[in-house]
Every structure is written in C-alpha cells, then in structure tokens.
C-alpha cells in the first residue's frame, strides 16, 4: 500500500515539474516582456535593454527557467511587475476570501449533492430521478453570471436581504457572520457545482450497483435502499472523495466569473488580472500555486481511496 502512495507522490512531483515548463513557455508566448511592462510608455530602446539585463531577460531561457524555479522552491514567489509588490503579499491578502468561499461551498454542496444523487441512484428512471437530471442539466446550461444576476435580483432587490457585492473586512468574523457575508457567491457556486456533483454521485453509485455482489444481493431480495446504503455506498467512497477534491480545486482556481461579479478579490481573479496586465511573474507564480493545489488535492483523494479500499489496504 505504501508503495502505491509513494508512486502517487512521485507522479505528483513530476506533474508539477512539467507544468512549470508549460507555464514558463506560455508566458514567453504573450506579446511584450517584463521589461516592456515595467517601463510602460517611458520605454526607449536603451533603457529597455538595460532593464532586460537587470531582470535577467537577456539570458538563455534555460537559465531563466532555472532561476525562476529555484526561486519558487526556496519560497520566493517574486515581485509583481505591475505593482512592484511581493507576490506572496498579494496572495496573502486574497487566499482568505478564496478559502472561505471554497470551504463553505464544499461544506454545503457536497452533502446536499451526495444525498440527492444517492436517492436518484436508488430509484433510477423514477420521476424524481428524471426531474433531478433535467434540473441538473438546466443549471449546467446557465452561464454563471446569469445565475448570479438572478440571485442578486431575487434576494437583494426583491426580498431586500444580503449584499449584491462582497466588500468589507472579514477580520474577526464568526463563521455564521462569514457565511452571511459570502452568502450569494456561495449560493451561486453551489448551484453551478451541484448539477455536476449530483450527476457524478449518481453515476458512481450506479456503477457499483452493477457489480456482481450487488446483483447477488438484489437476487437475495435485500431492499434497494438498504443495498445502496450498506453495500454500494462504502464502495463508492473512492470516487466520491475524488469528486470533493475536484470541486475544491475548481473552486480555488476557476471561479473568476463569480469573483468578478460579486466584486471580491480572490486568487482566480488575481490570476486573470495578471494575464490581462501581462504581469508574467504573477501569472507564473499563481499558475504554479494552482497546479500544486490541484496535484496535492488529487494526492490526498488518492490516499483516501486507497485507505478506504480493503483490497488495496491489504494487498494480496
């Protein structure tokens, strides 16, 4: 079992390294370079060359890459080109929002979707199952900003509860207070994620349901709900843990539209600002951060599934 875990770890490290190459090359594709950005409209041929030398941009790519990577490994994320601030500082003031929203969304949407998905799997083809499936597809099909606008109009404009944007300092807020602070973005994300989670849960449970031992139980006449809860569900834990990990990775890196719409600053929006202002250093560092988070979450999910699987826990 531990060799399995070690193998996963190695694969993870390898993935992070290959991503670092991709990210490094991708930022070289963008028009302009860091020296251009630094100097802006005051750039001349001479000071541009001087700035390139100062930033090490005249070096071969391989050396630039090595410097950048070793910097990151030693915990130095570099300085943002646009604001000339340490990137670690920019991240520090934003990860909090991202984390709070991600945790709340996961805490709400995962149990809810699991419950709905499992019930659907108990009665496949039933009216409930059909309606749930249609509802899930309908919400998948709605663009995030459309859902967010409907939520604002309904809750804030009509019912007069909550805030249309998320602003203000969250220091010292209690969890309940925090939840109401981030209520609408969390709700919008729950809606956009739930349809996926419901479908996946339902599929994962149904998949286990078609295993021979379940068929045996059905033939023995065990009630279907009991089969799902006692026999199928424990074996679906692996996939379900993966589902949770994936939602978290998504919530941290890809919720740009929601962050922009609700006007709070998170990591995803910081990354977009980096791309849009050609802040290569910021883009590279955040890209690595997201990749590490993704790989880390996948790793945790894998270890959990290994631990949850008796066959792997006790290898023959």
């Amino acid at each position, binding site marked *: 079992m531990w060799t399995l875990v070690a193998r996963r770890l190695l694969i993870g490290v390898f993935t992070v390294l290959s991503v670092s190459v991709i990210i490094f090359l991708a930022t070289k594709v963008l*028009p*302009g370079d860091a020296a*251009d*950005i630094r100097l*802006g*409209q*005051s750039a001349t041929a001479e*000071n541009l060359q001087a700035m390139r030398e100062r930033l090490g941009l005249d070096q071969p790519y391989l050396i630039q890459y090595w410097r950048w990577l070793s910097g990151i490994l030693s915990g130095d994320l570099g300085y*943002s080109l*646009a*604001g000339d*601030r340490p990137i670690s500082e*920019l991240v520090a*003031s*934003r990860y909090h929002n991202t984390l709070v929203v991600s945790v709340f969304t996961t805490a709400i949407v995962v149990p809810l979707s699991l419950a709905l998905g499992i019930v659907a799997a108990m009665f496949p083809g039933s009216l409930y199952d059909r309606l749930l499936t249609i509802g899930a597809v309908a919400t998948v099909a709605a663009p995030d900003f459309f859902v967010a*606008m409907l939520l*604002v109009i309904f809750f*804030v*404009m009509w019912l007069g509860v909550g*805030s*249309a*944007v998320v*602003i203000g*300092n969250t220091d010292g807020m209690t969890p309940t207070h925090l939840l109401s602070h981030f209520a609408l973005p969390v709700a919008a994300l729950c809606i956009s994620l739930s349809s996926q989670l419901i479908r996946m849960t339902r599929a994962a449970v149904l998949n286990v349901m078609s295993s021979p031992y379940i068929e045996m139980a059905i033939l023995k006449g065990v009630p279907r709900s009991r089969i799902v809860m006692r026999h199928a569900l424990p074996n679906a834990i692996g996939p379900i843990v993966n589902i949770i990990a994936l939602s978290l990775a998504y919530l941290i890196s890809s919720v740009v539209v929601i962050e*922009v*719409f*609700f*006007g709070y*600053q998170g990591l995803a929006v*910081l990354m977009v*600002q*980096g791309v*849009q*202002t*050609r*802040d290569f250093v*910021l883009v590279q560092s955040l890209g690595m951060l997201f990749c590490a988070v993704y790989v880390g979450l996948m790793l945790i999910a894998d270890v959990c599934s290994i631990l949850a699987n008796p066959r792997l826990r006790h290898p023959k």
Partner: protein
Amino acid sequence: MSDEYLKNPDFSNLGANDRTRLNRMLRGGATRRDMLGFMGAAGASALFAGSVVGSATRAYAEAPKRGGRLILADDASGPEDTVDPILSTSSIDYVRLRQFYGSLTRLNANLQVDPELAVEFMPNADATVWTFKLREGVEFHDGQTMTADDVIYSMNRHMGANTLSKAAALVADVDRWEKVGPYEVRAHMKSPNADLPIILGTFHFKIIKDGTSDFTTAVGTGPFRAVEFQPGIRSVGRRFENYWGNGPYLDEIETIGIADADSRLNALIAGDVDAIVEVPPKSMNMLEANGGINLWTVKTASYANIAARMDVADTGNQDLILAMKHLMDRERIVKGVLKGQGTLGNDQPIGSAYADHCADLPQRTLDPEKAKYHFERSGIGSTPIPIAAAELTAGAVEQVLILQREAAKIGMNIEVQKVSTDGYYGSVWLKAPIFVGFWNMRPTANAMLSLAYASSAKWNESKFVNEQFDQTLYAVRAVTDTQQRSQMYCDLQTMVQEDAGTVIGAHKNAVDAVRSYVRGMTYVPLNSFGGAEAAEFLWRDDV
C-alpha cells in the same frame, strides 16, 4: 465674486418668475445639471449660468454635518494600484491620492486655480520663473511639518531623463526647482509657461515627505490618514484631525474597485456602497426613478474616438478618413449610447467644456453622400478595414459598430477586432493601423492639443504632422489678446478637424451616482468623482 455675494445670491438678471423658480429649485436640492438646463432655458449665457449656479448652490447648501463613513466604488482596480503620486495611472489611484495627499494648487469646477499648499504663486514678467509661497503649519500625518524640502523632493521626482513619472511630459519645460527659504520654492522654466500652476493642480503633483521611497502606505498632508491600503482590495482613510482646512467632514472613507459595471450598479442600488463611478448610461432612467439615488453628472470634454494612423499607407488615405468622418452617426452616440449625457463631437478634441472651444466650427453630421464620394475616391473598395477596439469607456466599442453599420450601406467593409481592455494601451493603442482611443479632459486646450496632436507628441494617435499647427500651438501660449487668442485656437481646431486622422463622435459627461444622503460633491471635469477632488468636501446628510 465676493463672499458677500455668495451668501446673498443676486438673480436680478432674471425675470421674477424665473427667480422664484430658481430659488425653489435651489432649496429643493436641485442638481447642478437641472440648474444649468434651467438657466439655459431662461436665456442666461453659459458662462453666467455656470457662475450663478456654482455660487448659489454653495450659498444655499446646508452647512456640512460631521461624522459618518462612506464607501466609494471606482471601476478597475488590481495589484497595480498605487499611492505613489508619480506612478498613478487609474481613476481609483487619483481618487486615493486626493484623500491622502495635498498639492500646491487645486483646480475648481471652472478649471481655474485655487491655492492649496501654496498660498501664493506668481510668475516673473515673462513667466520664466514661478515663485510659490508655501502654507505654514501644515502637518503630515506623522506629525512632521511640511516645508520647502518636501516640495522640492516631490517635484524633483518628475525631473530628469530617467524619471518614472507618468506626468513628466507635463512639466518638461521646467528646468529646475529651487528652494528659496523654508516656505518658498521656485521653478525655473526652459520656456515661458503661464499654465504651470494649473498643471501642478492635476493628479500626479501631490506633495510627499522628503525622502519617501516606500509606498506601501501613504503619508501625506491630505484630509484623510491612510489606515489601510491593499492594492486591488481596498483603502480606508480616517479623518486627519490636524488637517489645515475646514474639512474633512467624514470620519472615515473607504475606496474600492468594482470592475463590472452591472455589479457596481447592483452594489449602489442595494446600498452596499454609497457612490459609484461610470453609471451605464442606459440605466439612468431606472436610477432617476429610484428615490434613494442621485446622479452625479459633470459636463466634460472627454471622448472616445477612432484614430487612423496616417503614417501607414492604407489608413493614411485622406479620402478614407474623410469618408469615416462623414459616416459617424453622432446623434446616435449622444442620444442612443450616452442617453443624452454628452455633446456632439466634431472630430477635434476641444469640446464645449473648454474655455477655448471654437463655437464657429461647422458641425459635421452623418452624410452618406459625401462619405460615398470620398470612399469611391479612396479606391479601397471592398478590402476589409480592421478597427481594433476595446471597451475603454461606455460606448468605445459601440461607436465602431455604429460606424460599421453606416459603412456597410455604402459598401465599406469594416471589421471590428475587439480585444481585452487591460494591456490595450501597451499592445494595441498607437500600434494597430486603426484603433479606438479614450481621452480624459485636460485642464487647458493647449495641454490637450500638445499631448495628442503636436507632431512630436508621443500620443499623437493619427501621426498628424502639420508645421503650421505646431507653430500656432506654441505661439498661442504667449498670446494675451483675447480676440487673437480665440482666433488662433479656432485655427488649431479647424486644422485638426479637417486634416487629422481622428474621428471624434461625441464628448461624454462624467456620470457617477450617489445615495441621496451623500452631499458635498465637486464638479471638476477632469475625472470621475468630481475630478477625484470630492473626498475633502463630501458629507452625509443623515448623521
């Protein structure tokens, strides 16, 4: 105008009925826009109307109340936000600078200069040396007293070939700054400039402490003390108790950026913020019907335009440029896109908000016949004409769509290339053959024309080169005779209108909005939030 007059406005020029109505409007809290409209209708000249309204609204305004907190929402904001005066580039930067710092002079709603940290400023006979006497007893937020050293340090940051200042071009004609005494400084000019005090009243020339190099927070002499500044997230200013002026009235002021216009509007309607910039013009009817919100509009000469580079063979085609100028449906931009919050553009930048606007210039209108004539002469035919566009301001892209629609009718094939707003100025603007631009109003017509149309200007969008234009532009700076001066400005505007490669469809008012309890707005036409000047004067009626 004397203080006495301000306290007792005299409307004797108006008829009795109008006088009564005007008084009623003033007491009823009419907006400046309402007032100007009314005065215009009553036959008052624009200038007279402006001054009466300016003084009268001040006279009738209730005494400001102290206390309370406001949240201002500007638009774009990000890690590039700064409180370093010389590096600031965005509207939100300017708004913050005004809260935390002071400057030597201050511009008012008529773009005239009022004293601020300099109590007196006078030129020598030929305007080659300017002497500034500084206000004494002004304190920085850390308790130190402001002296000439701080001013010299602040001004020198704009000097030299290696300066990082975004505004270095504005003071390029200053040779050096000299400290005369602890409260007196001098600027020695390379060439005469009567407008130096106006320039020093603009955004970038704020006074910082001698030796400051760390801008993670702001230490200035401004009305608010920075208690929090996180780029892209928020800034919070608390009232500076030792501020030298009357204000500020608020206890605290928070400034944030909400990039998405619809979200910003939501935030104001929901009451999450107290003031927003750049209301989508199409939402104005709804906002005006909403009892809790007032529009905050300032007539400015800012504009979005389309520029064709005349140094590129295809787009330098004068007939093509003229065809585009005749194809621009200016009425539709003003009425349809800006919903009346703007004035017709006339292919030159000096709109009617400038003192030196030339009213005699014939107004260009949509004229498909003329356009067709020029387009056929251009020989371009159905070759696609690409126009790079980004939504730099409300209507920047839409003007191109409007042009494209009219162009299609005469067989001109315009291709819109929409790109991202951020990074636009670095990689597209001035570089694409035809592109859209956005210009804020400048304090003087000369500054505007020098920045955007002098043949040597870095931001000369269409690469307009005209020797006569350049000569007139420099010569007029020294002309004092009013008639000769206005003739010269008319000549300049005519040359731009006829020969430059820029299509200017409309000048756009600044349309911001506040919750109805917000008072004390300023109306300087150079930026949103009343020229970014409002912080010191804003107050809440409900505290």
